[in-house]
């Protein structure tokens, strides 16, 4: 709902005037206007009446509640500080286990699936493996040819 504005006296200025948030010049100008304008004075009075009637929600914490909440907060603050040390420790331990298992693994870390062989010996081993596979294929081919001859 738009409030009516009149001259220099708009709703926002009235709100700021009520809370004492207008600068000196604006405050004096509005005060002079209010002295002369009954309509705006009535609007300000209505605004002040409504705002004064608004309740102020207030919680009262008993000593027991305060003690309980304080204990929860201090406990959680202590717990938050400790897990960091624990996390660093566990991260270091995991890293160490991983490093050791890579070193202990047969063929070393280069033998990981998808990993590339690095040394000449490893390349030689792979070539030997391929040769063996090819020999197997040749033998199978010979067997097939033998079968054909027999048939």
């Amino acid at each position, binding site marked *: *709902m738009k*409030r009516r504005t009149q001259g220099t006296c708009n*709703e*926002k200025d009235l*709100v*700021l*005037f*009520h*809370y*004492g*948030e*207008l600068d*000196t010049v604006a*405050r004096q100008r509005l*005060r002079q206007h209010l002295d002369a304008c009954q309509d705006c004075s009535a609007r300000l009075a*209505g*605004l*002040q009446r*409504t*705002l*004064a*009637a*608004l*309740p*102020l*929600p*207030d*919680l*009262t*914490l008993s000593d027991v509640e*305060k003690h309980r*909440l*304080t204990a*929860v*907060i*201090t406990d*959680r*603050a*202590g717990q*938050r*500080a400790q897990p960091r040390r624990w996390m660093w420790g566990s991260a270091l331990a995991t890293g160490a286990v991983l490093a050791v298992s890579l070193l202990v693994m047969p063929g070393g870390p280069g033998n990981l699936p998808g990993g590339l062989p690095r040394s000449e010996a490893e390349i030689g081993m792979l070539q030997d493996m391929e040769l063996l596979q090819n020999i197997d294929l040749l033998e199978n081919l010979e067997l097939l040819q033998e079968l054909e001859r027999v048939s």
Partner: protein
Amino acid sequence: MDYRSAAAVIDVDEVPEQLIEPTPDSETLLLERIRQGDEAAFTRLVSEHLTQVVNLAYRMLGDRQEAEDLAQEAFLRLHRALPSFRGECRIKTWLYRVVSRLVIDHLRREQLRRRIFFFRKSEDDPDPVANCVDPGASPSEVLLGEEARQKLFRAMQKLSGRQRAVFVLRHQEGLPLKEIATLLHLKEGTVKVHLHRAVQFLRQEFTDDEEVTS
């Protein structure tokens, strides 16, 4: 200086004083003790500020449990930030800033969650734990007070997180707009607009009701 001791509505002829004061010596000592690992000092700091921090979150959220959770988070963040806390502002100012931002973030997440899951929080359910009965008040006064409070919370749920934060910090906590702008990392002009819109909306909600009853 206690924020609550500063009247929410100050005399219009008074220039609002800057509420950011130099860190008092006792606070510096307390911080130093906490940095040295004194858990009792941190417990003391928490108990000193707990009620105000929970109340600030409660006024913005209208839910006691959520307010307590956010207050806890604010203190935990303070604990984590203490090694780098140089004391440029008071602890209370720091806590107010963190709580306000936590509340705004929380409200944004809630809004998003409701939009995604069509979740609607029951606005009509009063918070039974939050009802702190004033022993001096009559049952009808208690009932009226509770109704007014629930109505305020329902109305405030329709405000944006920033509007809500600005209104609570200015109207209920009595902080000057300049300080609110610093707390929320907003321009002072933006804060003024948020305050005006919040007041305008609440006034409409409450004035309309008065007109219906009268």
